[in-house]
């Protein structure tokens, strides 16, 4: 065991540095103060709302390039139908759905039931017991599809961002062979820059969740003879339903 103090002291000695905070380099985001950052986060949100239409269009394009199967839905009802249609096209008979605000607006469960798909819905409170989590894991690996909302999407890269705070399971978007995500108008950000402004805002407000997952289409690999294959450990097929 190497003691932390000793480890850091050795680094400091080698760098010939005094034990004090350096003046932060202007290039890093750390040089942006709290008030300035919070104001910037407000601007990011306002801009995402103001440009909601063009950003959703840009996302549709970049997501398609990443092999998402993109569906545009005008209304929440259309979106629910699109989710059911995606399940039908993928041959999915059983799904697990994470909780998210979008599903209070879009009647996805009703549309799925009408299609004859069996739905397990995860609640907001999490799964407390080891046994419960074991069952959820087994189910996530067994079902045909996982359905989630998206906290943000990124137009630059064709990406969705998922936070656990909306009652989300990590495995629902990962273990089933098909993942269907619903993105609402207004939640699309231009680039990773804006996303990490908002993440830093969460941090400074003491609200940073335990993780964030960025997902950009079906899993893929190029590890055999540098040939790209879609579908390895994560989902083989991913659908993105854009509402609005």
């Amino acid at each position, binding site marked *: *065991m*190497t003691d932390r103090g000793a*480890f*850091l002291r050795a*680094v400091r000695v*080698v760098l010939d*540095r005094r*034990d004090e905070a*350096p003046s*932060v*380099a202007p*290039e*890093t*985001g*750390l040089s942006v103060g709290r008030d300035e950052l919070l104001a910037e986060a407000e601007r990011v949100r306002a801009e995402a709302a103001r440009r909601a239409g063009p950003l959703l269009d840009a996302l549709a394009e970049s997501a398609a390039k*990443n092999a998402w199967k993109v569906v545009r839905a005008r209304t929440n009802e259309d979106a629910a139908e699109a989710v059911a249609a995606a399940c039908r096209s993928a041959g999915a008979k059983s799904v697990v759905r994470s909780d998210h605000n979008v599903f209070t607006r879009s009647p996805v469960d009703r549309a799925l039931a009408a299609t004859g798909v069996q739905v397990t819905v*995860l609640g907001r*409170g*999490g*799964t407390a017991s080891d046994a419960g989590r074991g069952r*959820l894991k*087994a189910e996530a*690996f067994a079902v045909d599809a996982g359905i989630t909302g998206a906290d943000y999407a990124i137009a*630059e890269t*064709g*990406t969705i961002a998922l936070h656990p705070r909306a009652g*989300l*399971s*990590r*495995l629902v978007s*990962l*273990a089933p062979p098909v993942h269907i995500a619903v993105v609402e108008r207004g939640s699309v950000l231009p680039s*990773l*820059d804006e996303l*990490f402004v908002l*993440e*830093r805002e969460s*941090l400074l407000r003491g609200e940073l*969740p*335990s*993780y*964030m*997952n*960025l997902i*950009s*289409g079906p*899993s*893929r*690999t*190029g*590890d*055999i*003879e*540098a*040939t790209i*294959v879609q*579908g*390895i*450990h*994560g989902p083989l097929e991913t659908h993105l339903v854009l509402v609005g």
Partner: protein
Amino acid sequence: MEVKSGEFRKVAAATMTDPRLQEALDGVYTGFYKGRIVQALTTDRWEEQREQGRAIKAHVIENLDYYLGMFTENVEKNGGHVYFAANAAEAARYVVDLAKSRGVKTVIKSKSMVSEEMGLNNVLEAAGVEPVETDLGEYIIQLAREAPYHIIAPAIHKSKEQVADLLAPQSGGQKVEEIAALTRQAREQLRPVFQRADMGVTGVNFAVAESGSVVIVTNEGNGRMATSAPRIHMACMGMEKVIPSVRDLALFLRILIRSATGQRISNYVSMINGPRRPDEHDGPDEFHLVIVDNGRLRLLADPALREALYCIRCGACMNACPVYRKVGGHSYGWVYPGPIGAVVTPAMTGLKQAKDLPFASSLCGACREACPVKIDLPRMLLELRSQAVEGTAGNIKHQPEARNPEGPAERLVWRAWRFGMGGRMRFDLGARLARVALLPVARRGWLKKAPGPASGWTTSRDFPLPAARSFRSRFKRVKRAAARERTMGGGHGA
């Protein structure tokens, strides 16, 4: 991992005469290399972002103790456990001890180069714990019991036929042929392992000081599996991986991914801020982080080599390197191949057994051009060459065993060279003498076969005889003639 860089010449020679390996190495060039160039040309403010990334890394490395301190405090605040390891053995022991104390039977591994430094798979096996690599490339080379050939594409040297032979026994001898089918077969083999594993071991692409986050980038989803399914997450990182702010992630993800695979983004980026919280459905109960030195302090101690710690492990330098693309990944003999490997292997593990590596470069500068944080690799390779010959190693104490590898003959040649280059007259005289000396053996102005130790030069190309008149004397004559023409009033059309 054992350092086998002493066998550089042998392995490199074997690789260069193996047509199949040469074909596989072409894949690196056409795939990753071109992809990076397309991204560099189509990303806004690409050069500016490289500069910014470099400035941030320079700032962190110059104040590394401060940022490491901030980072580890925040990891603990988030509920994680931090362990500092001076060397690879210490780090491996921590992982194994924890696995044993928690009753872990199976460990799934997402790609981690630091765990390769630790030789973690062997250590776990010896302790009766089953380690399973889950990155497809790492899985293949684990089955082949080999070291990674490339840090991004570890099994780039294996043909699909070889992969088929390696995978078949894991599916009861059932053999498939096509690449897509092989990929699917590996998926089916690993899914039950993801479900039963008790511990996930991952690397760390970025460690964020202000939030205590570790960020993991994968395309396959295995990184997410390792941090979602098992009850313990163990992350391993070199001490140089820290960046200051959450906001800096946008820039670093952009330059890392675009330089590594030529994608705009990898399919999965996970930012982990500690273990599962009570209101969540899944995720690990425990989060452990091992931070290793393992020779990095030696890099830090040498101002001439410190820059190597800016590396974000994208692999762009090896894709760009004409030497890597011929000699392949195993020649370098340790964890990191290519130009960055040629710098960090001797610097971290000792120059003596890796003294050939700094010479395995044409100093063409393609690596520096490709590097997302503009690491001056050619300068450091020259520095290490000088250290190998002079036996000096910056702040590190002299390594006399590495002194003058080429012997007194080479020293004599260099002394003569220095004398010859020491003055105009000597240089001119030398050139003339060289012509006179070579004239009898040259044919039509070319030397087909140089004598003695210089014969290596002419095995694959001819050597031109020095010209009868030097460029300088011809230039003088031309200038005189031009001046004469001007004074004779040649200005027609005036």
